[in-house]
């Protein structure tokens, strides 16, 4: 699978294999006994839990203690305060997912200035440079995810259809890339389609934003929502009012997998590989602490998931069996 996007500074992606650990690396890391802190945007989502599981496992293999796991609750103010607290506690490295752009840039720069390694997940505040303000970015190929979603939604759209795009209002590299790629693919491959873009500021507002968009454009034939949690809220709202629409989204969370198996609203999911992203982030931290050069951007390809391949995709991504509800809906497991 190839990476179709470019990094935050136009970098070409390095594959996760570039940050593989050799037995000697693990032995050297164990002897050092490093302390690593993790700062996440949220700990509630399935995605965040899987990234954390991937990271913590590798860090454990390398004898590195995870000394703090912070849930910023999507709040830039909280993230700035927590990063400053961690800088004072001086772990050897911090893995952080910047929840905003400009508001959190200086706080992240202070981590590197204090001599700690900083590996970023998914987002780089504008102006921060690899090798200077942070060690590396580890993310999904978000541009590729937007493209996969567009390819998946397109067959469900009649000629000259109107399509809604629900983006995220925060200036955030990952969601920006998905939105740009979805729109670009549609403009290039389905020029007959009219796109209407709205952005929600909080997950709780996603359904209201969809409602406002549908009020302005009642003829919408499909929707793209930039990740699964708001997409499920929108799906629930459209289904409750009795007018479900085909929805494409990103991330194969448990509810989204069930939604896909039901086959009512969710028709295509561009899945990230959060467990492997966590693994790659932890390996990048260990290599950089060992003083080895690491690529500026490590990217993991996305996976296109439909009702037909949801079971094996779920297993491949989450490294666990698909939810019983999914198996039941697809007739693979008996039960009510």
């Amino acid at each position, binding site marked *: 699978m190839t990476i179709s*996007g470019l*990094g935050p*500074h*136009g970098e*070409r992606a390095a594959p996760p294999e570039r940050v593989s650990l050799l037995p000697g690396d693990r032995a050297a890391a164990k002897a050092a006994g490093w302390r690593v802190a993790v700062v996440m945007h949220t700990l509630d989502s399935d995605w965040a839990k899987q990234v954390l599981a991937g990271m913590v496992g590798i860090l454990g293999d390398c004898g590195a203690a995870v000394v703090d796991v912070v849930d910023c609750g999507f709040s830039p103010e909280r993230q700035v305060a927590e990063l400053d607290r961690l800088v004072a506690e001086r772990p050897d490295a911090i893995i952080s997912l910047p929840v905003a752009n400009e508001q959190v840039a200086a706080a992240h720069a202070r981590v590197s200035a204090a001599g700690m390694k900083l590996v970023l997940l998914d987002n780089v505040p*504008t102006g921060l440079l690899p090798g200077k303000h942070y060690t590396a970015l580890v993310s999904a190929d978000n541009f590729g995810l937007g493209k996969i979603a567009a390819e998946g939604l397109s067959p469900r759209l009649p000629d000259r259809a109107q399509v809604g795009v629900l983006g995220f209002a925060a*200036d955030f590299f990952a969601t920006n890339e998905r939105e*740009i790629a979805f729109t670009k693919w549609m403009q290039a491959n389905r020029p007959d389609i009219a796109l209407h873009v709205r952005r929600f500021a909080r997950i709780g507002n996603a359904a209201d934003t969809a409602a406002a968009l549908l009020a302005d454009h009642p003829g919408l034939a499909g929707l793209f929502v930039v990740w699964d949690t708001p997409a499920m809220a929108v799906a629930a709202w459209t289904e409750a009012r009795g007018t479900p629409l085909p929805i494409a989204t990103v991330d194969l969370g448990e509810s989204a997998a069930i939604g896909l198996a039901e086959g009512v609203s969710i028709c295509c999911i561009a899945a990230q590989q959060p467990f492997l992203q966590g693994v790659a982030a932890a390996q990048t931290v260990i290599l950089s602490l060992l003083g080895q050069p690491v690529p500026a951007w490590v990217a993991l390809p996305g996976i296109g998931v439909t009702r037909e391949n949801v079971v094996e995709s779920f297993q491949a991504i989450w490294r666990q069996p698909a939810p019983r509800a999914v198996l039941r809906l697809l007739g693979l497991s008996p039960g009510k």
Partner: protein
Amino acid sequence: MRPLTLTSPVSGESLRPRGKGRPRTVETAAPSLVALLNLVRTGAANTRQELERHSEFGRAVVADRLTMLGELGLIDESELGAATGGRAPRLVRFAARRASVLVATLDQTAIGVGVADLSGNLLTEHHEAADLAVAPQDLTDRLTALFRWSMERQTAPGGLWGISLSVPGTVQGAAEEGFLSATPPVLPAWEGFPLVETLIRSFGVPLWMRSSVETMTVGELHAGAGIGLRSLLFVKVGRRIGAGIVCDGQLYRGAHGAAGLIGSLPVSSGGRSGTLDAMAGSDMIQREGMAAAQDERSPILADILRRGGEITAIEVAQAAQMGDAASVAILSRAGHLIGQVVATLANALNPELIVLSGSIVQTSDILLAALREAVYRASHPFVTRDLRIIRSQMGSSAGLVGAARVASEALFAPGFLKEWILQGSPLAHPSLSALRTRLAADAPPGGVPPLPPAARNGRETRA
């Protein structure tokens, strides 16, 4: 922002009674407004006392002009500085967020767009793969779509004041000041296509264009490894190889903006000779990589070929990074050739820092290592004593930052600024108004959206 009025007739220019034919104070105020604004903008003076000292204008003139600049929204005096005994002075800050500038880099294989403030700081950026060989109309459509998307995400209160483009070739006729009124010849594929005219028609703002080597050098100097340096050599390695030269803290452009075209220099290696572009550029790396894949000298590249993959210079660089001997040899040879030419420049200019950039350099360490070896071997010991040779950390962002600096410097260049400062917006510059009128008259029927109205007194409609 209110329309401009003078609060008191205080300047030396205005104390005398106004004789017949003598210009009104509000008109003669322009030179002092320009001087004071640029002192604030460049950080040379941050308080009223400092402004009086640096400008040699009297206290009343400074106070009056600052009021005018405040009304135009170009400065902000809401912050207090540190007291040095007595009352804390009010800080005078440039209102960099008064408006924004759209910037873009057009590369052979990628397009990057961003929004910058009036000090040239990037507020947002996005890069995507693109083929510069596509029809110029398609490229312009994509650029316009990305510009509109960027503007939607970043709304500056004063709207858009300019566009600055970084392009892969020398821009003929690009003067230090003044914006473009027609598309200069840059790439053969763009021959006859009105890129500049189309963008000015769509956005209604002045447009500047510089070569990517120039913008990246400026970006590296102001926001990358070159911060605070007086001498710097920037080398971009792609299909073409070019150098940017910084002397005494300033970009050296030469007589026609063509300084640093080192890619046309003749070099020879292994019995062959040609230009540096042909012997060490990415086309050669790709071609040699393909040959190594076809005759199985490179197992990694041969494998990519068998799986139906494409081999570009990036794949060769990635293979070299993984220890592929044939790819290492290709990049070492390129690095040595570039290094020999760079050594000549280094001996002529004695820079503090040499920055290497381009996606091949970003992907692999081999070319950088070979170049270092060649420069150190061929240079005078004094030249290399404290010389650092590094890889750019900014990537394509350097081009965006540099393009933003080109626009901000041009907007506030004294000769340009005095033509618009009293109106509070460069969209009221007479040359721009004339150009927009001409472009509107020349527009093909039916295909062009209406122009936004020209600005008056600091108000304009966003395009």
